[in-house]
């Protein structure tokens, strides 16, 4: 009995020892030499694996940044949108480099064709997929550039940052957005755009992507951009370009002066998170606009008085 046990232990032990020696030499021969920085960089990354940086995952981004640091001594063109400047600074510190500060971005839905603004003319019954509906027809409201409201962007979002509002039928982005760009790729109509978050979350953008002429655009949606050129003329910073009957505000040139918002006849230009306008006595335009609002308000109240 003891002999058998001894024999077994001895043979297995010797075999194990022999294989360990073999494996040691093989491991030495085929050793993968990896920059230890890669692990360090990966540790500071958010590990969301969202692909927002343009690489398949966080590990891949770490490898690319370390390689870039070793070769070019710069992290230009590399950015983790989820981690933002804080994480990029840590990455740069590990790699002993400097990194330029990047403005945080956010996804912006450039369509305002809600149930009220673009009433449904037909009813869609097919599968809940924007990609499919896009190849099928223009949309319930009739606008062939506008939001289909079936939620491909919602499905694509890993951060619970975009939802379809049941009141308007349009996607709404909340502050969980990390600007990874998944929804931008998922939208078959290219409605969603990444724009800077802006100081105090203040943003101005054209909430329309309709490239049709004014007439047909307006027929399908009451808040469509009709390409009237008014905003382009009023912009003091030359930030607005109009192409194919559609205005676009260049966020790099825009100084958020809000002049275009006032002149837009269809309210297609949106301002977000700005304080309400105050009447200015020395500025004629502001005053008159305010007065007009007052006049209509009083008229409405007068009407209600008559009715009662």
């Amino acid at each position: 009995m003891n002999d058998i046990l001894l024999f077994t232990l001895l043979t297995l032990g010797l075999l194990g020892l022999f294989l360990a020696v073999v494996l040691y030499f093989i491991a030495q021969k085929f050793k993968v030499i990896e920059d230890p920085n890669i692990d360090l960089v990966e540790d500071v990354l958010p590990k969301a694996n969202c692909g927002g940086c343009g690489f398949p995952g966080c590990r891949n981004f770490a490898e690319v940044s370390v390689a870039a640091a070793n070769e070019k001594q710069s992290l230009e063109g590399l950015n983790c949108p989820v981690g933002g400047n804080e994480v990029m600074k840590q990455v740069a510190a590990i790699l002993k480099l400097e990194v330029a500060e990047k403005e945080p971005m956010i996804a912006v839905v450039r369509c305002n064709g809600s149930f009220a603004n673009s009433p449904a003319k037909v009813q869609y019954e097919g599968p809940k997929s924007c990609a499919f509906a896009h190849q099928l027809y223009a949309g319930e409201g009739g606008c062939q550039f506008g939001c289909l409201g079936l939620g491909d962007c919602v499905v694509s979002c890993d951060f619970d940052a975009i939802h379809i509002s049941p009141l308007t039928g349009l996607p709404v982005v909340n502050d969980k957005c990390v600007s990874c760009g998944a929804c931008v790729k998922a939208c078959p109509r290219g409605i969603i755009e990444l724009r800077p978050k802006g100081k105090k979350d203040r943003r101005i953008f054209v909430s329309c992507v309709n490239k049709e002429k004014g007439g047909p655009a307006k027929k399908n949606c009451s808040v469509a951009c009709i390409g009237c050129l008014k905003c382009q003329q009023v912009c003091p910073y030359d930030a607005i370009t109009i192409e194919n009957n559609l205005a676009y505000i260049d966020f790099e040139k825009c100084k958020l002066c809000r002049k275009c918002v006032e002149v837009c006849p269809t309210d297609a230009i949106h301002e977000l998170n700005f304080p309400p306008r105050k009447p200015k006595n020395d500025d004629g335009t502001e005053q008159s606009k305010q007065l007009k609002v007052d006049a209509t308000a009083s008229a409405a109240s007068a009407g209600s008085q008559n009715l009662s």
Partner: protein
Amino acid sequence: MQQLLLRLPGHRIYPKCMNSNTMLTTFKMGGVHPPENKLSAKAAIQRLPLPKQLIVPLGQNLGVAPKLLVKKGDEVKTGQLLARGEAFISANIHAPASGKIAKIDDALDASGYRRQAIFIDVTGDEWIEDVDTGSSIIADLSVSKEDIIARIKAGGLVGLGGATFPTHVKMMVPNGKKAEYLVINGVECEPFLTSDHRLMLERGEELLIGISLMMKAIDAPRAIIGIENNKPDAIEHLRQLSSKFSGISVQALKVKYPQGGEKQLIKAAVNREVPSGKLPIEVGCVVSNVGTAFAVYEAVQKNKPLIERVVTVTGDGLAAPSNFLVRIGTSVSELIQAAGGLPDDTAKIINGGPMMGKALVSSDIPVVKGSSGILLLKSANSSRKIPKSCIRCSKCTTVCPMGLEPFLLAKLSKLSLFDRCENERIMDCIECGSCQFTCPSMLPLLDYLRLGKQKTGNLIRTRK
């Protein structure tokens, strides 16, 4: 035993063809038996009066849209060239009536989008010169091969079965290939539609002359007209007429959907199988619709371009389901009006048949070269049921006429795995809708297959 077999669900008993000494044939793989509902089968083809305005979309053919030749304010005559197809796969467009070009603007078409179209204010029906508008039948088979193809090209002919592939391209047999059979599609397997059936009955002789001309163009010694056995009168009629023409025979086919598919028809009529991803010429066949054959007759013998076609207007609740000979560009609402007006509880207006057709977003959409029927459905018959989970019953795989796995392809397409879709041969899908028709869980299989096929096609094109 025979009786018992015939009474199984899905099988119908048809009157046997008189004179039929050949056996009925069909394709082997898959297929379904939707209710036929050929309501307008007895309605003779009527010519619809000219409407006040015609809307002629530019993109009416598969491939590249033709180049516009006219401008706003031009006076045009019936049959005048409006747009020339300059690319290889493109087809001319002619004025369907004489009048003045009101504008060239975007108009809603059957695609559901607004596309470029020519608006013509109709003043009359004054034809251009050298077109024979008489009704006498001309059988001049001495036209040369090149002349036939040139006239087909000039006439702007496209496949009238629905795919709208330019006919002159199909008639040019590639070098090194030999066309043995011209297979003519008189199957009309789509439920409800009867335009081809009526055409075969009423324009049989013209049709056969057209077939003879096409045989000459592709050097095919034989032509086979495939007709399903639910049209015994058409089989009989064409059998009698075809005895006068050499090389043309009629093959009666068992009723099964989608027998009108190119590859299914070749299998049924000639018993050859087209390899995956290849064209029918690979097995020595050229397939064409009966409507196209009639248009070839008109173009070659009478010099008449393709400006009108037979459209079935049918549906449940419609007062008079009919077959109309209408000019291209006539609004769908005019057709419905002529067939007795839109029933109150219509839920869907479908362009084409119930299996492959597509619901229109408006009744002001014009008839184009590819419209074979207008189908009105009530909500009870057309609304979709709530989809449930796939129960792996494999019914879709059984009925797929191309031997694909629709449940898998739909899933892959839903998950955007288009490279795997390609490996599973999504490009072989003929979009017949048999899978969705048979699915007990009401899954939108065809919808996802169509999406996947389009995306995979884009993927393959970008790779090149």
